[in-house]
């Protein structure tokens, strides 16, 4: 089936077109040589840190539980290698903060025997809906597109609400990143089983895989498989950032608009990333916890932009080494994509569950330009996919008018960065909007306290 242009869907307002730079799109997933030491933080997800269940000096195998989820929003943490726990101590992670982490010295590569390491495809789904969710929860799966929200929570639709459509996010609208693209090409059959599992867990009979038009091979391949899978379709999407933003994707595919402050499930939709879906397949059909992921390592000066299957906890430096090493002109290293990723100051920090890419930016492009006065060109307003006025939110932030910023709906900002990207005066709009959001958050907490 060919995909015609007029079938392309997209979100209606705003968006930008950063240079795609998908340098590693043609590079098949390679297995990264095993690291000698891994650093596994107890929090790699949105929510409460997990609680350690092993001790310093313990010997562990790959796939063994290291820390148990604690509280409602949290996720289990497993060992990604076999070896000895050398230390349990606070270590820097991508956030720039120190987090309690397991430092494990690897020895050989022994896996938990319960894990099915074979390549055999298990298509038949024999487990119940509850069992699927339980297994996904046990496996410590979180949103692998970068949001790292625990997956099992999104699968437990709250009482009184009903999901009717599952959306699989294969958009990968961030420039440079190709991990999801490669995954769709190389793990397509597993992905389809994963989708069926999630559909069963959510009790929906409809799933749509959203993919940007710049990945025609993935669209064609999954289309072919979807034709044989009742209920699953592929939707080609226009190349426009942030097409993969949850709310934008739901709007593009279903036409439904998630109300401000509400959840996707309030409009009957649940979105999962393709990486998450594959992890769900492996957890349910192969008993494999989330202990490795696909990471794009890329950059204009990098010798070998690649996609690697990386064990969680591998130091970022080793992944870069495998792609030809850190180029001499490196100015910045970003975990994630250039629009929403996080710049890091050290390379001994670990790859975690949410690390979709490692982007190396040459020094010549690593610095911001001097800030100039706002010329009120309205470009930030016209690109904002949430219909906000970034110039105004920044102004309110500068004048510390948090109440006003709240009225102007600063909290709706999805931090996509389109406004800062487009501003001809190089104004750090999103920096100030983040500040707005932080201060408004503090205000809200104070209000809640006053009430209770």
């Amino acid at each position, binding site marked *: 089936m060919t995909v015609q242009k007029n079938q392309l869907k997209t979100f209606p*307002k705003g968006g930008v077109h*950063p*240079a795609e730079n998908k340098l590693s799109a043609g590079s098949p997933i390679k297995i990264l040589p095993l690291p000698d030491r891994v650093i596994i933080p107890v929090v790699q997800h949105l929510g409460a840190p997990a609680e350690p269940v092993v001790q310093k000096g313990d010997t562990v195998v790959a796939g063994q539980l290291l820390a148990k989820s604690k509280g409602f929003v949290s996720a289990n943490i497993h060992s990604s290698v076999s070896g000895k726990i050398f230390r349990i101590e606070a270590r820097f992670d991508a956030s*720039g903060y120190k987090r309690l982490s397991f430092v494990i010295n690897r020895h050989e590569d022994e896996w938990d025997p319960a894990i099915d390491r074979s390549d055999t495809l298990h298509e038949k789904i024999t487990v119940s809906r509850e069992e699927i969710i339980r297994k996904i929860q046990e496996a410590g799966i979180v949103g692998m597109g970068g949001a790292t929200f625990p997956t099992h929570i999104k699968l437990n639709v709250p009482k009184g609400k009903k999901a009717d459509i599952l959306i699989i996010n294969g958009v990968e609208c961030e420039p440079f990143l190709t991990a999801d693209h490669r995954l769709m090409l190389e793990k397509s059959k597993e992905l389809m089983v994963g989708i069926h599992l999630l559909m069963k867990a959510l009790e929906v009979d409809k799933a749509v895989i959203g993919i940007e038009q710049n990945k025609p091979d993935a669209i064609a391949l999954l289309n072919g498989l979807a034709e044989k899978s009742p209920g699953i379709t592929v939707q080609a999407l226009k190349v426009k950032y942030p097409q993969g933003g949850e*709310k934008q994707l739901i*709007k593009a595919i279903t036409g*439904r*608009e*998630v*109300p*401000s402050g*509400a959840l996707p499930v309030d*409009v*009957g939709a649940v979105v999962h990333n393709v990486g998450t879906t594959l992890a769900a397949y492996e957890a349910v059909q192969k008993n494999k916890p989330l202990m490795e992921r696909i990471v794009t390592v890329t950059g204009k000066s990098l010798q070998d932009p690649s996609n690697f299957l990386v064990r969680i906890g591998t130091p970022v*430096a080793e992944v870069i080494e495998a792609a030809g090493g*850190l180029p001499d002109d*490196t*100015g*910045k290293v*970003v975990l994630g994509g*250039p*629009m*929403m*990723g*996080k*710049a*890091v*100051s*050290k*390379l001994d920090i670990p790859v975690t569950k949410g690390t979709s890419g490692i*982007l190396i*930016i040459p*020094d010549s492009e*690593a610095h911001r*330009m001097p800030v*100039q*006065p706002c*010329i*009120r*060109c*309205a470009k930030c*307003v*016209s690109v904002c*996919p*949430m*219909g*906000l*006025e970034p110039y105004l939110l920044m102004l309110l932030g500068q004048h510390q008018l948090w109440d006003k910023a709240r009225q102007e709906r600063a909290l*709706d900002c999805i*931090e996509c*960065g389109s406004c*800062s*990207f487009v501003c*001809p*005066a*190089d104004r*750090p709009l*999103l*920096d100030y909007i*983040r500040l707005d959001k932080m201060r408004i958050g503090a205000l809200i907490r104070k209000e809640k306290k006053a009430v209770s």
Partner: protein
Amino acid sequence: MNKLLTVSLSPHVHGKDSTSRLMTGVVIALLPAWAVSVYFFGWAALYLPVLSVVFCMIFEFLIQKYMLKKASSLKDGSAVVTGLLLAFTLPSNLPIWILAIGALIAIGVGKMSFGGLGTNPFNPALVGRVFLFISFPVQLTSWPVPKGFHTSLTDAVTGATPLGMLKEGMRSGEQVSTLLKNVPDHMQMFLGYMGGSMGEVAAAALLLGFLYLLWKKIITWHIPVTILTTVFLFSGLLWLINPANNADPVFHLLTGGVMLGSIFMATDYVTSPMTPKGMIIYAIGIGLLTVIIRRWGAYPEGVQFAILIMNAFVPLINMYVKPKRFGEVKKNG
């Protein structure tokens, strides 16, 4: 491996737009109109705009350096645009000293007194132009008749603009329809063959500039198209009601500063609204006021006043006209 890495918040890439790039785009878009002007009005139309730009830049530099004691912002190119636009609204036989005063007012009062680029409520070029118009009405309304390169400043024949003839005639009680027989026909006006300000005469060249601005995404269609449509419809309505006493709508579109004003002045980023809806409200206001001033006001041309008046409403428009927020819908709506 002990490199010092830059750490900053996302996004880590930036689009290719910059203030100076956008301003350069505006200058390029003005070139066709400038060329036509030189063709019709001769050398004066070449060097007066250049002088205007130089004056604007010098005043901006001096004011920033000695009065505001701020770093110079000449590089952003906005003074160049102001200088060109100011000159474009003036006749080509204007004495240079008057031009210099106009540049001083445009930059000093129109822009710097409010804090410089981005903070001025009124279009600086128009502030300069209107000041000159009020202070030097004679010099500002003696228009050389288009001739070409062989015109020198001194022996240029001056005559009235089509709009001026219209106003004069109406005052003396003549019928508009008779008057219009004496003005250039529509095609001549479209190409710019008429008396008028340097950059205003050639609608065709200005429209070419408009296409360029749209192509380069420097401006959107909302303001110019809405102004032109409003002027056309409103003047057309008056004409239909009483063709003997009103000029036809095409005449209104092709004469005076409507083209230059709607494409290049009303769209000035700083002094126009931030949302498409706001832009349309603002542009309808400009269109209506333009025709009202032309028809019933004291001056033959109204577009400059119309823009300045609507400039004053922009803060209000921005306060009340908000973009459509995502998620501003009823649940499951």
